[in-house]
């Protein structure tokens, strides 16, 4: 008898818990902040050196100086080698370091660098850099580290970029549900589009 009673209360408790959880759950589930796998790149590009803060010996270059397409295209893109050379041919101090040597090799052989995709969404997902940059960088006028950091994490402290956010659907949706101010000044808010069709292609 008592055994069974205990059993009953246990089961009932579990049932209720599961139910209430289910009914009230979704938003809580999307707080993942995990680290993606290490990706081996042809050249170990030191992000911290370029984009990092002064105190860490960084040069605080704006992300969109190199990833220049982010503000006008759906993809952020990788700068053409020419761009790297453009600066580095005027920086003799580091000219002989192994990475820069590699870089110049590629350039001299007129070969594109086979960078690996780090933040690689599935093929049926459409993520538009332009829209997000417009909204948060230009309209809301947030600092670029923050804006890019929403999805790309704290790249300015990394050497080779590595995924820091889960980039799962729930994670995206979590932000799309929030109300964001329209621009830096106004109090009006709006949330991201909810249509499946907007992000799924």
């Amino acid at each position, binding site marked *: *008898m008592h055994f*069974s*009673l205990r*059993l*009953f209360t246990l*089961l009932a408790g579990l049932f209720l818990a599961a*139910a209430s959880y*289910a*009914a*009230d759950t*979704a938003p809580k589930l999307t707080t993942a902040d995990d680290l993606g796998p290490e990706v081996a790149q042809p050249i170990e590009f030191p992000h911290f050196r370029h984009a990092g803060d002064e105190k860490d010996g960084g040069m605080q270059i704006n992300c969109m100086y190199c990833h220049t397409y982010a503000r006008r295209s759906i993809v952020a893109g990788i700068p053409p080698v020419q761009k790297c050379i453009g600066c580095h041919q005027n920086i003799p101090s580091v000219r002989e370091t192994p990475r820069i040597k590699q870089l110049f090799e590629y350039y001299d052989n007129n070969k594109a660098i086979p960078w690996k995709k780090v933040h690689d969404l599935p093929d049926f997902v459409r993520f538009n850099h332009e829209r997000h940059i417009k909204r948060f960088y230009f309209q809301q006028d947030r600092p670029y580290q923050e804006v890019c950091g929403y999805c790309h994490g704290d790249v300015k402290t990394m050497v080779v970029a590595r995924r820091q956010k889960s980039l799962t659907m729930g994670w995206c*949706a979590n932000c799309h549900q929030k109300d964001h101010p329209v621009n830096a000044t106004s109090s009006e808010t709006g949330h991201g589009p*909810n*249509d*499946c069709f907007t992000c799924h292609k």
Partner: protein
Amino acid sequence: MLALYNNFDEAEKVVSELRSADIKGFNADDDLTVKSPIEHPEVEEFLGDKPVKVQWFTLVGAVMGGLLAFFLISGSQASFYSQMKGGKPIVPIPPNMVLTYEMFILGGVYITVLGFLICAGLPARRSPLYSAKVSEDQIGILVKADESAAATLKGIFAKHKALEIQEEAGR
């Protein structure tokens, strides 16, 4: 102490006598159990009424299932990016009612069975005083009593020519 009888008439006589006879150290209400191969309401009459509580479990289960269903479903529809479908409301009543109905039954059945197990005290360890005959064709009468009452009880059993009397000492 377990006594086996051949048919219900005898068993009934025994039971009624046991209950009428007031024996010291033996309380007919708690200490008397009948084991039978088939469901046999008449015997129970002799045992005096013992209420069955399973229905209450049923009620609770059904109601719980129904409510859960409705809110779970409507709630999830509301939280599903508010997707419009076929010009129907985002939280349409008829479909949700269908599902509520199903869950109502589901909850009912599950909790009822749970109730049964609890009320019937199943699963339980088998008492040492048990004979396979009971599951075949004989009726067993199990009594708990002090040593003092034993003799009298045995007497009563014997009087109604029990086929077999098992005894367990101690306690």
